[in-house]
C-alpha cells in the first residue's frame, strides 16, 4: 500500500475556480502532481499559474470524447500514470421543469453525468493494470434532497451516486475505490447564481448557519484519495453543515 501521496498523479476537472481549485491546491500540497482542467485556455493558464511546479492546467471540454482522449494521452505521455481522478466539472441550467428546455436538460446531464462515465472509463485501464486508483465524483446534497428548479442538476448529481456504487463494485477487487463527495451550499460562483428566495429557504435549514468553504470539500476529497481511505468505496460523504443528514 502506498502510504504517502507524494509522486501520485491526479486529474481534477473544472479546476479554475471554486471547489475544483481548492481540490487541486490541496492535492498539490500533498505532493501530488495535479493536472487541472478548464473549458477555456485562459482558465487553463490560471490553473498553471497557481499550481506552478506542482502540475499544470489544460483546456478540456468534458463533453467532447476526442478532447478527453487527447488530454489523457498527453497525461500518460508526460506523467506515465494517473492515480486519482476527481470529476468535479459541473454546470447548472436552472428552471422549473415546466419551463426547462431540452438543451438545458441535455447540457447539464452531459457535463455533469456523462462526462464522468466518459472519463472514468478512459482511466480505468491504467488503474486496473496497476491495481490502484481513486475515482472521486463531486455530487451534491440536492442529488439526495432535491431542489425546485434543478430537476436536471439533481438528476445528474443523484446519477453520480448510483454510477459510483455500481462501478465501485466492479473494480473493488482491483484496488480501485469509487466514491462521491456531496457538498451542501458552498461559497462559490455557482451558489452566487441562486435566487434570493432559494438562498433564504436553504440558509434557514443549515444548522451550521453558514456557507461551506471550498477548502472543506477539498479536505474530504484528499482524505478519500489517501491510503487511509482504501477500504471506503461506493460511499457518498455529505459535507453540508448539517443541512441534510442521510
Amino acid at each position, binding site marked *: 500500500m502506498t502510504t504517502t501521496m507524494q509522486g501520485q498523479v491526479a486529474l481534477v476537472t473544472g479546476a479554475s475556480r471554486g471547489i475544483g481549485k481548492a481540490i487541486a491546491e490541496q492535492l498539490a500540497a500533498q505532493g501530488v502532481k495535479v493536472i487541472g482542467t478548464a473549458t477555456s485556455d485562459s482558465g487553463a493558464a490560471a490553473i498553471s499559474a497557481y499550481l506552478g511546479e506542482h502540475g499544470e492546467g489544460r483546456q478540456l471540454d468534458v463533453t467532447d470524447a476526442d478532447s478527453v482522449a487527447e488530454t489523457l494521452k498527453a497525461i500518460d505521455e508526460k506523467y506515465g500514470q494517473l492515480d486519482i481522478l476527481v470529476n468535479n466539472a459541473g454546470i447548472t441550467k436552472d428552471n422549473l421543469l415546466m419551463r426547462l428546455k431540452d438543451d438545458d436538460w441535455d447540457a447539464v446531464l452531459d457535463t455533469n453525468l456523462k462526462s464522468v462515465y466518459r472519463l472514468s472509463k478512459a482511466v480505468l*485501464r491504467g488503474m*486496473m*493494470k496497476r491495481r490502484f486508483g481513486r475515482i472521486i465524483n463531486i455530487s451534491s446534497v440536492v442529488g439526495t434532497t432535491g431542489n425546485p428548479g434543478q430537476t436536471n442538476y439533481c438528476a445528474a448529481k443523484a446519477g453520480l451516486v448510483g454510477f459510483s456504487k455500481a462501478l465501485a463494485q*466492479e473494480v473493488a*477487487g*482491483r484496488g480501485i475505490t469509487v466514491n462521491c463527495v456531496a457538498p451542501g451550499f458552498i461559497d462559490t460562483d455557482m451558489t452566487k447564481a441562486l435566487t434570493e428566495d432559494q438562498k433564504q429557504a436553504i440558509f434557514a435549514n443549515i444548522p451550521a448557519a453558514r456557507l461551506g468553504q471550498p477548502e472543506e470539500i477539498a479536505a474530504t476529497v484528499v482524505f478519500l484519495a489517501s491510503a487511509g481511505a482504501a477500504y471506503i468505496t461506493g460511499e457518498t460523504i455529505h459535507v453540508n453543515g448539517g443541512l441534510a443528514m442521510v
Partner: protein
Amino acid sequence: MSTIEERVKKIIIEQLGVKEEEVKPEASFENDLGADSLDTVELVMALEEEFETEIPDEEAEKIKTVQAAIDYVTNHAND
C-alpha cells in the same frame, strides 16, 4: 521467439494466476480457471496489448476458452 500459443498461455497464466498445467486448450476461463467477468475483460486487454490489436466487444465475448483465445490471435494478430 515464442509461438502465439506460448505467448497466449503465458498471458493467461499471469492474468488469472493459474498453473501452467491447468491451461488446457478446452479450459474455460470462467468455469475452469476461476475467472470472473472483469478478469476476462482484463485478459482481453492484455491480449490486445501483447499482440498490438484491437479486439471488438462482440468478438471478445466469444473468447471464453484457451483455444478460442489462441484461435482469435492466430487469425487476427498483426505479427
